[in-house]
């Protein structure tokens, strides 16, 4: 069977994912989430609803949280991306946000967690000491069916504490 192809149906895309530059040819119709998961094997980005409602697929694009199911991979050309795989150190040491979610039981089944972690990463980068109202507003687009959110809010507050402590550490050493 002859494949039906059209001009410009696929394009070369160059992205930086978790610090590594990746050049790949993608179908224009592929979402960024699918390319991350299926072309790059980064299956930590979860797909819940695939139409922008659940927030599970949230990643960072140039440091800002976006729904990777609502972006085409071709739209990310030239951009810097961070996924959940980029959070922990190479030796497996958890990122403070992950540490806090673990410590405060901010997850149960864990399906929504990657999206929460990346949303929180942007939140703490812009608001080092968020109050509960801000946290709940910020995370309103991330749906969790297990926790009831209380432990997630506590985890974010603890993550903020850990992040602030980490920021102070180098100064304490000098």
């Amino acid at each position: 069977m002859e494949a039906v192809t059209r001009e410009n149906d696929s394009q070369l895309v160059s992205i930086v994912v978790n610090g590594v530059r990746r050049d790949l040819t993608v179908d224009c119709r592929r979402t960024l989430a699918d390319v991350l998961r299926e072309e790059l094997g980064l299956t930590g980005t979860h797909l819940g609803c695939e139409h922008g409602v659940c927030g599970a697929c949230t990643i960072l694009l140039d440091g800002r949280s976006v729904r990777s199911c609502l972006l085409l991979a071709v739209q990310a050309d030239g951009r810097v991306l961070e996924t959940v795989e980029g959070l922990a150190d190479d030796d497996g040491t958890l990122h403070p946000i992950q540490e806090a979610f673990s410590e405060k039981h901010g997850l149960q089944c864990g399906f929504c967690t990657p999206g929460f972690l990346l949303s929180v990463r942007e939140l703490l980068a812009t608001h080092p000491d968020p109050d509960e109202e801000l946290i709940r507003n910020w995370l309103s687009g991330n749906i969790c069916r297990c926790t009831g959110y209380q432990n997630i809010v506590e985890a974010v507050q603890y993550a903020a504490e850990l992040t602030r402590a980490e920021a102070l550490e180098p100064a304490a050493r000098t």
Partner: protein
Amino acid sequence: MKPPPFSYRRAASLGEAAEWLADLGGEAKVLAGGQSLVPMLSFRLARPSALVDVSRVPDACDLRHEEGRLRIGALATHRQLEHAPLEELPGGFALLPRAARLVGHPPIRLRGTFGGSIAHADPAAEWCVLATLFDAEIVALSRAGVRTIPVAEFFRGFFATALRPDEVLAEVVLRHGGREAALVEFARRHGDFALVAAAASLDGTPERVVEPRVVVGGVHDVPFRSAAAEAALAGAALTPEAIAAAAAAAAAEVEPASDVHADAAHRRQLTGTLVRRALEEVRSRWRP
């Protein structure tokens, strides 16, 4: 849940986008923030053969206030409006940052655009309601030149506008901010499209209201301007009685349909309640 095949081109300017739209002959869709179009592609509710991406066009996201009008570049994002400096938004236009917080969630607001929302034309969308409230003019660009469309002629039905397939939305000009304005809505979940939204803008003084405008979203196939509610307010003092009369007039005037989300009676009741709340908010802002 995967989009159908299409070609993709990224425009460097709105003029270039308009050229391509002319060449592509009606089979293309304009992609801006993509927060509505991409889900429509995934559901295959939209099946364009080509996408013209304007999201990286520079200088198309400015907010400019001149002579009582607010010009909003098509690519201004919801987040940009959320953080717009209030001192540059006199009178009723100061509602825009407050209203932006009702649009989706932070990641949606980062990508989604004002112009995209207007072109998408969801009758419950905050920006479509406010474009109607603020008597917008929609500026469309095509190979043939610039065309300006008054909002009353722009929205044609659910997700339908007067934009031709070869036109790209370039700018929205809000022409009448009034003295104070408010938007309130009822949604099932935070960030959802409203079941019903009501907006009001008033001019004059609390003792004598001039040029009242009352708009209800989510009840008809386009944002609905309630002439009955406006008539109840024009020339009146903004008393609880006048507000109640305007709310009752709006509720009596709308002809909502029933759907899976809410039946007609529910939407009618919400109309009365939300118009009242919108007017009460205007009143409290006038008399803090």
